[in-house]
């Protein structure tokens, strides 16, 4: 694998808050990553450090074999699309494209205007007069047309309706196929992107919980539903993430639930196995321990 990014022991502290805690990973070229995790998990902080907009408190980061901070040679290959992007107050959509053309070596003006038309972005409109959805569409357009070898999208979908999001995913896949590059998608809409992304990075309270192939994570966890004794029998020796009850029925979420004989065992015990989607897996791995959630309570009889 040719790494475009390597991070070793990256830690970021804000006062007594640890936003990133000893995070190490590499990003390969020509790969789409999903950067997942709850709000406050450290996703944006990590992207800021990788794009030279923030310093790590400790650890080191290399982007295209060099530190990114104030390094124009590196930053010309990096595009960071974020909701909070600010533009000069007199900027129109067209101005943004002009600026992007100077910033990004691979910028494709025709592609940008095609995307703007698809998203119904008026080229002459002042950026500060754009609706939230149009602002997101502008960000997505710049991110795609820049064709930067390393592109970050930080929750690019805010304000985009489902049809516009589908358009974004389709254009991303099509253009990525023609012009492979490294894309990092930070998103909460995991079900929508789970087939698009090749690898998953999951942050939880500043720590890197998963760095895996998205396809390998499919079916890594299962829910096992059946009579309590049967589920106990099935769950023995396996890692249980979560448990719900309803009268005598138990539904247990089990990590790495499917060994070679798991299905036979489940069938013999009359336990129903269902795979967990990537989104459900992330929910279970990052949800705080609940004390009295309604579904977890024993039903009074």
């Amino acid at each position, binding site marked *: 694998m040719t790494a475009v990014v390597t991070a070793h022991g990256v830690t970021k502290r804000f006062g007594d808050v640890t936003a990133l805690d000893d995070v190490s990973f590499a990003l390969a070229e020509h*790969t*789409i990553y999903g950067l997942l995790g709850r709000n406050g998990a450290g996703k944006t902080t990590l992207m800021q450090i990788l794009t030279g907009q923030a310093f790590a408190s400790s650890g080191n980061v290399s982007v295209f074999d060099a530190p990114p901070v104030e390094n124009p040679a590196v930053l010309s290959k990096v595009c960071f699309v974020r909701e909070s992007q600010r533009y000069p107050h007199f900027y129109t959509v067209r101005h943004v494209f002009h600026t992007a053309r100077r910033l990004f070596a691979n910028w494709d003006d025709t592609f940008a205007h095609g995307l703007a038309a698809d998203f119904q972005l008026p080229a002459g409109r002042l950026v500060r007069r754009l609706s939230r959805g149009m602002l997101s569409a502008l960000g997505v357009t710049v991110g795609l047309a820049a064709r930067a070898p390393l592109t970050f999208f930080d929750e690019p979908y805010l304000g985009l309706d489902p049809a516009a999001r589908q358009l974004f995913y389709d254009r991303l896949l099509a253009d990525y*196929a023609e012009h492979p590059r490294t894309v990092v998608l930070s998103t909460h809409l995991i079900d929508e992107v789970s*087939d698009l992304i*090749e690898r998953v990075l999951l942050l939880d309270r500043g720590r890197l919980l998963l760095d895996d192939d998205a*396809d*390998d994570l*499919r079916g890594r966890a299962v829910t096992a539903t059946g009579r309590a004794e049967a589920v106990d029998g099935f769950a023995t020796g396996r890692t249980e993430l979560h448990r719900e009850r309803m009268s005598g029925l138990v539904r247990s979420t089990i990590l790495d639930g499917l060994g070679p004989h798991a299905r036979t065992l489940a069938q013999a015990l009359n336990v129903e196995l269902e795979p967990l989607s990537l989104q459900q897996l992330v929910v279970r791995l990052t949800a705080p321990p609940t004390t009295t959630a309604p579904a977890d309570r024993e039903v009074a009889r």
Partner: protein
Amino acid sequence: MDDDRPIFLQIAELIENSIIDGSLVEEAQVPSTNELAAFHRINPATAAKGVNQLVSEGTLYKRRGIGMFVAGGARARLRERRRERFTEQYVEPLLAEARKLGIGHDELMKMIDSFDAVVGRDLR
């Protein structure tokens, strides 16, 4: 793609199905990785993994610079392999459910025969 198996396996199986049902004949060109990715809305690397599995199994072969093609004899080999898995995939679960419901052997055979007579006739 919506079942729990890895997507690359599902892609491989979709292509196999097209070969088995004759919509992709031997020596026909298979859709490119990018076409498969766009159509199924999946990552091109995942689509490539599915196609490559079929290449390594000898179902498809690569013509450099042109694309992927269905290998000679692929259909017969796939049918043979599917037949070998038929018992485990279809007969076993059928019998397990029948046993759970107390459906005996004769009753089950009768069900198959009458279903085949009514619905199967339309499928032939």
